[in-house]
Each structure stands twice: as structure tokens, then as C-alpha cells.
């Protein structure tokens, strides 16, 4: 087991180099783009400015030296400076990323708890009212546009409920206040962000569990006399969870990249809107810096997902198939 984990962590290193190299090449040598213009954003580039920029950033050196320089700066945490505001990109990310991270954690928690529970319930109570309810709810949830759901929730929980209960019972509408908002602020945006993924997660869980429930070894376990709960937790769930964990891991990675629509509707000061605005402003230092951090986060998530496989599936733990 330990060997497997160490092997996965070591694989991290070449992946990291590969990813940052691609990012670096795309950032600086995209066909049709001008690296000098990318450094200044919207400003018009005069010949003198061009010379100055090339000197300041060493754009005339060979690409592998520039790449080495970029890596060196990365290890020191220097992601460059934003053109439009002059702030350090690392400062901007440190300020905004915790919001995105926290919201993603809340959404993933909702997804895991509600998604898995709903999937299991509907698989166990197949073709009953509960199953139909879950299937219907997930279908609706998947088709809802994220921002529309957000607006609906805002109106219902923020305004309607408040008016009906005379102000005693309501949820905050947006994250406009405070440094790190208290937990009530996470509820509505968390539900909005998790809605579609929860639906998918529940469906996958349901179909996986149904498939596993029909397997021969489950029939053997029942014949052996194991209780329903033992069968569920020790056999059915462990086998059914692998695709679900994969999906949740991918989804977490996507959430860590920021959610522009949710952030706009709920005025959430996260990284998604920052990247969107940086793209509009042609502020590439910010975009590249944010993408680098997000890549890291996603790589770590993938690592964790792979490690969790080792816990779920002994065949992976001990390497190679048995028979």
C-alpha cells in the first residue's frame, strides 16, 4: 500500500514538469499571439516600449532558459505582477482563492453526502416511489441553468422566507460582506454550485450500485449469511464507489477552477470572476498565475483520488490483477 502511494507521489514530478512546460509554451508561443503585447495588456505597443518590455522580461533569451526562469520564480512564489492593477499576482490569488476553495469544499460536501445518499436510497428502493422521486429530482437538477437556480434560491430563501417569517428566518443572499464570511453565506451558493454535480453523482452511484448488487459474489455473501448492512458497507459500496469517486474528484477539480456564474450571481469574491476579468483585460500575468495554481490544486486532487482507489480496491493496492 505504502509502495503504491509513494509511486503515485513520485509520478507527480514528471506530470508537474510536463504541465508547466505546456502552460509556459502556450502562454508565450501561441500561434498568432505576441508575447510583448501579452505583457502589456490593452496598451498600444510602440517600438520603444517593445524594446523595453523585451529587455525587462528577457523575451529574447532561448525558450528553455525562459522556462527555467519561470520555474525558479514559481518555487519562490513569484507569479508576476498584474498589468491592470499593479498588484502581485500571488497577493491577488492569496486574497481570492480561499473563497473559491471554501465554496468548493462546501459544494463537494453537499455533493458527497446528498449525492451518495440519494443514489444509494434509490438503488436499494428500486422502482418504488423514492426511486422515482430521486430520478425525477436529478433530471430536473441537471437541466437547470446554474444562475437561474441561484436567483430562485436567493428570492425564496433571502426575500420570500424573510418576509413570511417577519425577518426571523432567512439566508444571506450574497457574499459581499466581511473577510471570510460566516457559514450562513455558504449555503445558497454552495447548493447552487453543487446542484448539477449532485444529480450526476446520485445517478452514477445508483447505476453502479444496482450493477454491483446483481453480481455473483453478493449472492454468495447473502448465502453466507452476512447481514444486509455488512453486505452494503463491506462489499457493495466499496465496489460501486470507484467510478463515483472518480467523478467527484474530477468535479472538485472543476470547482477549484472557479465558478464564474455562481460568483456573479452571489457576488462571491472568488478566483473565477478574477480570471474572467483578467481575460477581458488581456491581463495575461494574472491568467497564467491563476491557471498555474489551479493546475496544482487539480493535480493534488487527482493524487488523492488515486490514493483513495488503493483503499477501495485491494487489487490496485497490491498492483496488477490476481488471476
Amino acid at each position, binding site marked *: 500500500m505504502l509502495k503504491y502511494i509513494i509511486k503515485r507521489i513520485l509520478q507527480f514530478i514528471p506530470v508537474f514538469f510536463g504541465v508547466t512546460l505546456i502552460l509556459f509554451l502556450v502562454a508565450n508561443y501561441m500561434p498568432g499571439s505576441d508575447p510583448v503585447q501579452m505583457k502589456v495588456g490593452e496598451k498600444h505597443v510602440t517600438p520603444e516600449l517593445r524594446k523595453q518590455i523585451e529587455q525587462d522580461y528577457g523575451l529574447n533569451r532561448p525558450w528553455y532558459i525562459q522556462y527555467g526562469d519561470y520555474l525558479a520564480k514559481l518555487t519562490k512564489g513569484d507569479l508576476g505582477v498584474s498589468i491592470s492593477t499593479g498588484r502581485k499576482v500571488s497577493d491577488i490569488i492569496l486574497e481570492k482563492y480561499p473563497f473559491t476553495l471554501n465554496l468548493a469544499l462546501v459544494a463537494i460536501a453537499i455533493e458527497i453526502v446528498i449525492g451518495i445518499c440519494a443514489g444509494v436510497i434509490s438503488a436499494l428502493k428500486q422502482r418504488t416511489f423514492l426511486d422515482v422521486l430521486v430520478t425525477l429530482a436529478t433530471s430536473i437538477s441537471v437541466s437547470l441553468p446554474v444562475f437561474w437556480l441561484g436567483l430562485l434560491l436567493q*428570492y425564496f430563501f*433571502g426575500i420570500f422566507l424573510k418576509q413570511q417569517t417577519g*425577518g426571523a428566518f432567512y*439566508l444571506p*443572499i*450574497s457574499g459581499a460582506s466581511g*473577510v471570510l464570511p460566516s457559514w450562513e453565506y455558504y449555503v445558497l451558493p454552495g*447548493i447552487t454550485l453543487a446542484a448539477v454535480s449532485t444529480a450526476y453523482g446520485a445517478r452514477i452511484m445508483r447505476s453502479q450500485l444496482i450493477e454491483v448488487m446483481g453480481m455473483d459474489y453478493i449472492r454468495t455473501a447473502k448465502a453466507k449469511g452476512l447481514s444486509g448492512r455488512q453486505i452494503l*458497507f463491506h462489499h457493495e459500496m466499496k465496489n460501486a464507489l470507484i467510478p463515483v469517486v472518480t467523478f467527484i474528484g474530477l468535479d472538485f477539480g472543476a470547482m477549484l477552477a472557479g465558478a464564474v456564474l455562481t460568483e456573479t450571481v452571489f457576488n462571491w469574491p472568488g478566483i473565477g470572476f478574477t480570471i474572467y476579468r483578467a481575460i477581458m483585460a488581456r491581463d495575461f500575468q494574472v491568467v497564467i498565475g491563476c491557471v498555474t495554481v489551479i493546475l496544482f490544486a487539480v493535480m493534488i486532487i487527482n493524487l488523492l483520488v488515486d490514493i483513495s482507489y488503493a483503499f477501495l480496491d485491494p487489487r490496485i493496492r497490491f498492483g496488477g490483477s490476481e488471476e
Partner: protein
Amino acid sequence: MRKRNVFLILAIAVVMVFSLAGCGKKATTGSTSGNATTTPVKGGTMSFYIGEPAYIDPYNCQETEGMQVVQALYDSLTTVDDLNPSKLLPAAASSWSPNADATVWTFKLNPKDKFSDGTNVTAKDFIYSWNRIANPNTKNTLTGKSDPSVISYHLGFIKGYDAVQTGKAKELSGLKAVDDYTLQVSLSQPFADFAYVVMHPSLGPTPQKAVEDGVTYNGKNVAFGDMPVGNGPFKMSEPWKHDQYIKTVRSDTYYGTAAYLDGVNFQIFKDPETAYTEFEAGNLDFTQIGAGKIKDAQSKYGTSKNGYTASPNEQVMLGAETSVYYLLMNNENKYLKNEKLRKAITLAINRQAICDIVFEGTRLPADGIVPPGIAGYEKGTWADSKYDIAAAKQALIDAGYPGGKGLPTLKLSFNSDGGHEKIMELVQADLKAIGIKTTFDSADFPTYLKQLDAKNYDLGRLGWVADYPIEYNFLYPIFNSKSGDNKAYYKNTSVDTAIAEAEKTTDDAARLTKLQAINKTIGSTNPVAPIMFYKHHHVASARINDFTFSAMYLANFSKVWITPGK
């Protein structure tokens, strides 16, 4: 069976947790019944909606959002009455007088005027600030790089302005501190309206030391641009939290009547619709009304009697603003420099429909660039600023693009955070009706302004609010070839000269006649397409009293007070 119960119970528990979420919160808005107090009471913090500003450092404060903050933090030499914009009032200057031909203006400063850090405001501080605005090499304190002010043209008539702009001099030769409290301004030509110009909040005094060294907050050094220091009724309580809020508190060193409010909390929203939802939930004291919700807001919150002042149950403000909403056309663009094409575009726009559909009839179609309420307004000064499809189609043929043939798809740019989508959709449809195809290109306001500065647009939009309530302020900044606010890049040197000539005329009536003629000349070639004159579509909460949001789009934070206990 036991196993499903575990999951069911877990699911129910989760739902219950979320339901309990609201229970812990105190009710912040009670009912509006109870004793109505009419005497102002000190206390409370007002939460005020703004979009993310481009700058709150006055040297480059160029748009309405930053302006709300700047005018709470700074008092300039003069100001105007909230409800009567042509009435000049003393502010940082207690009195002023021009010489016989209005070429030298002497301002006597109020000796009680202090910055929020306690130091006295002297004539030297005004001179330092104005030089900072005029100098093209002024550094932006946030980036440390040179970032010239785009509003320096306000100082265009001061002696030495051209020398500073071209780098021949570092300071305006026309500024002189006769003594600590007397500022003498010499102009390069007579300018009868100068006392109005200096009311602009961006022309307030800034302390040199704070600008150059920054300020200290919680032991850390913060750049002046994130935490400006001024002489106004409020001061920053913490640095600007970008995209979130700007918090200000009452300044105890203010020379005038202290404000009733303990502070103003400027909440920054990416989307005015979210802000209006927050307002309806009772969490915001002042905001723009959401699209299509004006009549609904009027029935829920009552309408202000004079359109500008809000009090409980008279909260919706719909007064006419001294501002105009216009379609920008890039006059240097190879297609749009054709005057007939611009004529076709302006004749194609159904202005009344926009006012009716998007603003429920509460706005006025624009028949020129100068709005009613400004002395010298005349109906129909821009002959083509009306809806006439037949004439538009004809103009398109005259331009050489019959039915739009030969024209590429033009880019229609606008700022994404101001609620302009619906208007732009109607404009796009109007243009399509005569054969001109357009695509949208939107960015947030600070980015959009930079795009305009880089001339990176075909068609755009802008709103112009009077900085000072005179006709000159609509013609010079928008159309003078050297003005940083001339985003249409209209260039007509004879108009430049004519405006300067008109301002030499000290007789008010004669000056107005000249400016009206210039207005017609500019309008004859349609450099921009005026669409409508703004009206307020704002609302204040039920606990706000005596709050005036003027026709010049400036809030008076000194007189407003909050009903106690709310």
C-alpha cells in the same frame, strides 16, 4: 431493512441542518410601524451600492463609481446646491473672486479645513494635487508606474498647462500660493465659468506625504491609491478591498458640520441585479432598481416627491439627471469615419422604444447631447438624433453601403456590469433592421474604459454626467480634440477654437448663444448618437431619511440620517 435507514436519516439530517441555518440570525429589519422621528439622530452606517471603481485616488477619478467614494472623502473649493445645480456654494474655499476680465481667480481657503490625519489644508496642497493631475508622468501609487490622468483637461485653461503636458515644465505656472490660505489661479484666457470647474470632487486637495509614502494600516504600509487621505466628511477606515467593499467612517477633523452617519459602507457588486436582490432582502440601503422593476418598486416603496430626496415611504428616486446616454462611434475607424454612415446609424435607433421597454417610460429620448436642466438647452439641436428609418436607409445608400452591403460586422462594445445588455439588444436589432450587423463585446467597466483609451472598438456606449452643470461641460470634455474624455476621437480644430472663444465671453447670454451654435455644428456630423437623457432609477431603504442623490449623480452623505433602532 436497517441499512437504508442510515442513509435516510443522514439525508434528513442534512436537510434539517440547512433549515436551521436561518434560525440563529437576528432580524435586522423590523416593521416600519412605530413612532416616526423627524429630528436627525447621529449614528448608524449606510450601505451603498457601487460597481468596482477604476480609481479612488482623486487624481484620476474618472467614472461614477469611484466618484461616489471620492466625494465622500474630499471637499473641493466650491460645491453646488443638491437640488439646484446652478447655485454655487462655498466649500473648502470660503470665498472667491475673479478679476475684471475673469483671467485671474483668487480663492480664500477656510483655515479650519484639515485632512483626516489632522494636518491643515493649505493652498500648497491644492497646487500639489492639481500639478499631479496635469503632469503626464504622474505615477499611479498602486503600480509605481507612470499613469497619466485622463481628466487633466479640466485644468486646461490654467496658465502653463500646455508646457506641463508636453514635458517642458513640471508645474503649472498659473498656480500661486499667495499665502497659506490664499490660492491665486491665473488662466491663459478669460474663463467666466471657472468657479464651477473647481467644484469637481477630483480637484480636491491631497497631502503630498501620504501620496508619496503611503499610509500605515495595522502596522503595514498601504499605497495611497488603496487608502486615500482627504479633507471630506468621511475618511477610509481600512484599505480598499477590491471587488468587495470600501469602508469609510465619519471624519472628526472635518471643518464643516459633522455628518450624522457613523460611516458609509460602499458595497461593491459585479451585477446590479444582485444588488437589487440584496436591497429587497433588506441588506442594502441604496441601490439601482433592477431592470423592469421600477413600477413594482414604486408601489412597494413609494416615490420621492422631488425625485432626488428619499425618506421613509418616499424611497424611489426618479429625478432627471444632468446626464446623457450615447452610442459611441470610433471616428478614426475606417468605416465609421464616414459621416453618412454615422448619420444612418443615429437615424436608425428607436429611442422611444428603448425608454419604454427598458425603463418603463421613465426616461427621455435624447434630441441632442445637452440635457434639459442645463442652461442653454434647446429642443432638437442635433437634427439627426431621432428615429427615421427611411432617412436612415437613404443615408446608408449615400454612405456607399446600400442595405448594409459592403459593411463588415461591427463590434458593439459595452461594460458588462452596468445593466446595459437590454439596451444594446434593442440597438443591435435597430441596426439590423437597416442592414448593419453587429456583435457584442463586453468587459467590466475599468477594462472597458481602457479598451476605449486604446481605440480598440467600433461602436460603444458611454454615459456622461455633468461634472459641473454648464453647457461647456458637455461640449469640451466630449468633443475637444485634446480631451481625455473624447472617446469618440472627434477632431475638429475650428470647434476647439470656437469653444475657447465662447468661454472668453463674460456676458452669460452671449456666451450661451455661442455655445448653442457650436452644439449644432458638432451635431451636424453626428460624431456620437445621443440615445436618452438619464433619470434616476434608484431607491433607498426605509430606514434612510433626508437622503439626496443629486441630478449630478452625487450623494449627500452629510445630511442623511438613519432611523434609530433599525
